[in-house]
């Protein structure tokens, strides 16, 4: 019997790693992956919480939420990748550190 907390803690750790990735990587693709990791961690937490509760409806609603999150993630990916590709086309680099013409 694994306590739910363990799952939540795990998800928290994953979430943190994802956040860290956003902060320290310079490749927008990897930053983006890190975001996906964060969402993923959230999903894990959701399912765990859903499971923790006996009521099946609750359980299902949790899972459905996860479903939506994944859909949204997909949508984001579509836009995000398009954006990145476009940028690469125009400046032949996607290093976010080189995108700081707007500042101050």
């Amino acid at each position, binding site marked *: 019997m694994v306590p739910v907390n363990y799952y*939540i803690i795990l*998800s928290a750790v994953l*979430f943190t790693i*994802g*956040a860290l990735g*956003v902060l320290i990587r310079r490749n*927008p693709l990897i*930053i*983006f992956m890190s*975001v996906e990791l*964060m*969402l993923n*961690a*959230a*999903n894990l*937490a*959701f399912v*765990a*919480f*859903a499971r*923790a*509760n006996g*009521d099946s409806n*609750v359980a299902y*609603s*949790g899972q*459905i*939420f996860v479903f*939506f*999150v994944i859909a*949204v993630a997909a*949508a*984001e990916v579509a*836009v*995000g990748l398009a*954006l*990145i590709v*476009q*940028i690469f086309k*125009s*400046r032949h680099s996607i290093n*976010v550190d080189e*995108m700081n*013409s*707007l*500042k*101050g």
Partner: protein
Amino acid sequence: MPQPTDFQTILPLTVLSVWACVLLLVDLFIPKTRKSITALLSALGLALTLGLTLAQTGLSLTGFNGMVVLDGFSIFINTILLISGLLGVAVAYGYVRRMGLERGEYYTLLLFSVAGMMLMAQAADLIVVFLALELLSIPLYVLAAFNRTKTDSEEAGLKYFLLGAFSAGFVVYGIALVFGATSTTSLTGIVAALATGAGAANLPLLAVGAALILVGFGFKVAAVPFHMWTPDVYQGAPTAVTAFMAAGAKIAGFAALLRVFATAFSSLAVDLTNVLWALAALTMIVGNVIAISQTNIKRLLAYSSIAHAGYILMAFVPYGNREVMPVSVAAGLFYLVSYAVTNFGAWGVVIALEKAEGKGLEVADYAGLGRKYPALAAAMTVFMLSLIGLPPTLGLVGKIYLFRAVIDGGFYGLAVIGVLTSLVSAYYYLRVVVTMYMRDGEPQAGREFWLDATTAVTALVTVIVSLVPQWLFALASESVLKLF
């Protein structure tokens, strides 16, 4: 199965979305040179929706098993949103052509974004809130990057997107925690859970979850320290988009913030009030202070919009206090409206002066405006005064309402910060006026009917409504009272 009332609840929303989809198809058959037709059609759609929304006045429904609600509040917000949408189209109308971005999708995306905002205002379930958030954001990401020939625009798009996604991650995790604490995501459900004490054990969990959701909203309304995307995006994005974004996203963000916190998390007030306090204070200070150093008008207005987010946040600080709450939130809404109007006007002037190659965006480029285009300069002066909060403008009335609410709630410190920062703000707004009237120069303004109309109307509204603000405030407060 869903009932007709369910659809009635989101009738305007549905109409708008459908209209957008249809427009998407229609646009394919509109020749490239005649895109203004698309613009007019989209405006028509918005107008129609606005009509429907107003027609719904007085209704109070919930639909889709409490996923969405229709109440005075949402109607009030939706009205503002739709008007912002219309103004957004108006300012874009000539601009996109001048800048060579005239493409049908522009308007479609704008419509979808408005739809997302409206949904946000009506959402009564965290799932819907999240989806609405994305629905309004994704089009904005795209619109921000809409000027593909300009690297600035792309950069703005990417920054906005990455950070948006990042903050969305927090929102989702926050929702997860809330779900964990209360086993539900519907606002009413949360309240019920708290009432029964079922999830009482997990108040900390709930608090943290709420905080994370707050981060998401804070990001949307550009509250310090989640604001940093704002200046870059506002500067990089096409100005017409910025104008729309600055108004619409803020309104929607605050609407959701209000509904979620006032209804679901009011029991957390003890903890969150202080957080909000700090956010508001920080936002006012940082926004105004950094604005001083700006020489680019778009960045300047960006920081000013951050600062104003701070002022509006002030209204939410006492959200736990049932006596003060209605008035203070009403004040907040009032200020939101006054800000939206002023904001559109100011951006309208900026658009008028912006030239194709992105010139005319430095404050210095405004020199001599007072001589060359007195009307334009006068309008800009009105907006600046309103942003400072001086008579005879909406800004003053709004500020006074706000400060009264804050004092009423007993947050004197915050009030003092507010007034002092608005004193600081006077400095950089005045610089614009100084440049316009007291420096010589040869500014070039592109004039087109819809733009001028926007500027003129907003200026007039700013002045006239400030003399008879009562009805507006009445509307705001009624709409708030509907919340509880």
